[in-house]
């Protein structure tokens, strides 16, 4: 691994300053970034650890729902929101393995926006707000394709606000070796309608299945989507599953999530 200077600021302001001086890269839990750096696929002159910033950790109820500090680990989220937002707790508690959940963070996952990660579907289906050091970004504007987000250079996620739906569920069809989502569907029913977000399936990363949202907003039951089909045209096709297989999984898992919600 290429060497770097390691800095661990204690405040958001110091972190932003460090990230905006020269070739710097933010490091959260590191459960993706460190493996990527070992392969020589990422690196920077300075690595700025975000895990020493107290104001970026923890879960509380606030305006608009649950406020989750970006540097909060998956294990902590799974524990802290178990009663307030069980579907999100289940998502967080199913990421990777226990060791990964003790280090990996919600902000790290959303900043990376892996097309098969769990959190992007939870954030998009919840209509979450991504709060950064300089602005608030609606989830609908935040996810911009494969590993692409609305974040600017040197901008860090400090907090994520999750509105709490009336009913919700996340169902993931696991890739058994990595436990990433071969396909995962998060369904969230709000007073104003239903949101369905799919991860692991599309070449463009997480997306909303708007046809299902319309059908489920009128009738929140698995039967409501039985007549729909998902276009396999832009689905991921790899050794784990073909595009058609994933397209079918989107529908099957959506139905399961509605039933489970």
């Amino acid at each position, binding site marked *: *691994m*290429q*060497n*770097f*200077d*390691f800095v*661990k600021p204690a405040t958001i302001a110091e972190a932003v300053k460090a990230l905006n001086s020269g070739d710097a890269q933010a*490091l959260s839990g*590191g*459960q993706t970034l*460190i*493996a990527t*750096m*070992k392969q020589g696929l990422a690196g920077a002159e300075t*690595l700025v*650890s975000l*895990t020493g910033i107290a104001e970026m950790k923890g879960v509380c109820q606030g305006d608009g729902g649950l406020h989750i500090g970006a540097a909060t680990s998956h*294990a902590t989220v799974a524990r802290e929101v178990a009663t307030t937002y069980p579907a999100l707790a289940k998502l967080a508690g199913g990421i*990777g*393995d*226990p*060791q*990964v959940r*003790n*280090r990996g963070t919600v902000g790290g996952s959303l900043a990376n926006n892996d097309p098969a990660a769990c959190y992007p579907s939870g954030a998009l289906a919840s209509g979450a707000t991504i709060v950064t050091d300089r602005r608030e970004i609606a989830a609908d504007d935040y996810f911009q394709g494969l590993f692409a987000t609305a974040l600017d250079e040197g901008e860090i996620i400090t907090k994520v606000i999750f509105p709490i739906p009336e009913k919700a569920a996340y169902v993931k069809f696991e890739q058994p070796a990595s*436990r990433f989502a071969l396909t995962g569907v998060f369904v969230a029913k709000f007073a104003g309608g239903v949101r369905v977000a799919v991860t692991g399936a599309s070449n463009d990363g997480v997306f909303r299945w708007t046809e299902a949202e319309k059908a489920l907003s009128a009738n929140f039951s698995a039967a409501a989507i039985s007549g729909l089909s998902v276009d396999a045209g832009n689905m991921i096709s790899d050794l784990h599953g073909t595009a058609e297989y994933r397209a079918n999984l989107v529908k099957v898992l959506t139905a399961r999530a509605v039933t489970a919600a």
Partner: protein
Amino acid sequence: MTKLSMTVNGKAVSGEVEGRTLLVQFLRETLHLTGTHVGCDTSQCGACTVHIDGKAVKSCSIFAADAAGANVTTIEGMANADGSLSVIQQAFQDCHGLQCGFCTPGMVMTSAALLADNPHPTEAEVRHGLEGNICRCTGYHNIVKAVLTASGQTVAAE
């Protein structure tokens, strides 16, 4: 190089590290605590699992500098004060929970964290809890049996 201090197995330690030094390298190469193993280069096998402030973490997937000031426990810190094996270690021996033994330090560390969180897990919870640790010898049955035995639960004979 930067100077770094932390507590490992109850003792204050310090050393010089590069930014890129992984915690597992600091433990093995600087502190010569070679019980913590590196079984893969892809963060998947869990052989390097240690406890950081009581939580199971893969020491290959955290930089040593990020663990500065932390309280780290490795397999060398697991035996009882008189040198006898801890309940979990003894259960691994009694249940034949290892063959080659390479994954065992990580298995023991993850199991200890699991039982600290959930003292009487079901078999399914043990299997789920050990998802981050790969063993290529035993097929996991005896490892699961060891963890259940260590929790004080009676395990049916095969």
